[in-house]
């Protein structure tokens, strides 16, 4: 096995990202979703709490697993809603961001390359199939993690700032948030990537890949939403375990994708 050529990998990543930022179909969802989820939503919740519209959520808290509900239930009632939503419920929902960014970029990198007929040029260059695959993975994975982390920083600032009049302290990140950001988020980004690598092998255009991917990715989103509404609300150790599982599935998908990612197979499907 030859050594990885970092310069070649970097060149492909840079080119893909540069091109992706010029494409509305890629940039718009990458901006809109994080802004809505991580800035607008927490602000609305926190502002609502500040207005004194203190919904009684004790009956809801009763349904939650004891250990999870306890830190929230202990708080004064006017603080409960904002801490519950911004401190806990939004954390799983946040996973939509890395999932979406990585799958949109991967669809553009794998299926989009075929669609634009630029793949053949690339195959005629001195870059190994393995390095090319690596570049395509990194080109989707790194931005997904970067966008989600940047989004989280915005979220933390907004959530804490807007809720300050009510809480007079910092309440984000919670431990659950930290696990989600550092461990589960990147795993989910890798999962979106693994799915899109498989899907893109069959799809002819990036749009098609996104549509087929949606069949797989959407249920995951629904799951994330389900979690956030409390149905599947998890505790920290469970979140760590889920992250591990997602990493394993993502790894398996990418590994299988890599084995099919040979020059000859790519050139056959040009």
């Amino acid at each position: 096995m030859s050594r990885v050529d970092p310069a070649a990998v970097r060149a492909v990543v840079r080119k893909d990202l540069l091109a992706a930022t010029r494409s509305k179909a890629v940039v718009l969802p990458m901006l809109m979703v994080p802004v809505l989820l991580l800035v607008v939503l927490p602000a609305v919740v926190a502002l609502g709490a500040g207005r004194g519209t203190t919904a009684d959520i004790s009956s809801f808290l009763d349904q939650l697993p004891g250990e999870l509900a306890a830190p929230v239930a202990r708080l004064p009632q006017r603080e409960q809603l904002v801490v519950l939503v911004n401190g806990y419920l939004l954390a799983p929902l946040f996973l939509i961001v890395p999932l979406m960014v990585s799958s949109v970029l991967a669809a553009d990198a794998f299926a989009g390359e075929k669609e634009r007929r630029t793949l053949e040029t690339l195959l005629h260059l001195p870059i190994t199939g393995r390095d090319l695959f690596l570049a395509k993975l990194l080109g989707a994975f790194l931005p997904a993690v970067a966008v989600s982390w940047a989004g989280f920083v915005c979220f933390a600032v907004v959530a804490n700032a807007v809720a300050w009049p009510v809480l007079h302290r910092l309440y984000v990140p919670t431990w659950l948030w930290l696990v989600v950001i550092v461990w589960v988020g990147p795993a989910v980004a890798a999962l979106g990537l693994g799915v899109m690598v498989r899907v893109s092998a069959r799809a002819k255009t990036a749009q098609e890949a996104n549509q087929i991917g949606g069949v797989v990715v959407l249920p995951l989103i629904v799951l994330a939403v389900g979690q956030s509404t409390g149905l599947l609300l998890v505790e920290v150790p469970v979140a760590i375990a889920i992250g591990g599982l997602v990493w394993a599935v993502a790894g398996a998908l990418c590994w299988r994708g890599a084995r099919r990612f040979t020059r000859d197979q790519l050139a056959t499907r040009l």
Partner: protein
Amino acid sequence: MLEAVDLSRAFDGRVALDGLGLEADAGEVVVLLGPNGAGKTTTVRLLNGVLLPDRGCSRVLGLDPATSGDQLRRRTGVLTESAGLDDRLSARQNLAAAAAIRGIRGNEAERRITGSLERFGMGHRADVALQGASTGERKRVALAGALLHEPEVLFLDEPTSGLDPTATRDVIDLIADLTRTRGSTVVLCTHLLPEAGRLASRMAVLDRGRLRAYGRPDELAAALWPGLAVDLDLGGPATPPVLGVVHGCRGVLGVEAAASGARVRVEDREAVPAVVAALVAADVAVYGATPRPATLEDVYFALQGEPSPAAPDGTG
């Protein structure tokens, strides 16, 4: 230098290339001809190690494309059929990516990209996104990219399709120049027979994946038509007695009447003065004698089994 033996490849059981055999020396231009779907693009992909053969093998620059592909691709340049550029990027950005993968970076890359784009008349459009660029403009940018690293072997898949006449002529001159001054070897796929004729040191005629003929155009012509055709301008169609006079001369292989005289097939050009002398001696006015060496076009059509517009013996 460039060699293929029994090179074959099928897709889903459908044969795209069947038993191709080629060889060429450094500095030669190998022209791949043949109707759509003949297997030209497949040949290029196999020779540059992008596709793997089902059977047979090849060597380019002493390397086996199937096993030393990346080593080989460092030294080859390819212009693909569709220019293969990202429309969202500028010409410079497209070329910079390819250059960086080839290990050309920084000022050196900048200098080469600018130079190469200017050489193809795209200097003024180097920094705007390619979106909206014309077919020919794209092709020029792609050509600039294929030549950036001064490749030893250049694969050009229909380089002049979509180019205007001036650009076409420039590309042909460029190919001739590259082989002459740098000793680059060129594999050229084309449908344009005159340009192929100007450049070809060797021609391969493919049809549905099979090699119909391979060799130097003049040798292929000699195999098809012995000797040399010469048009005699006699001011009008030659009469049977005149044809008899010509036929009686030494070195004449055949003769037939034509609109303005006769077309004679002679062993070689040394036979021409004797023919003219015999005609003059027989009181026949000779206005001109023009050798008509077979062109690549004639050879191509003859191999296709079709009459050529200008076949050396009038029948093709």
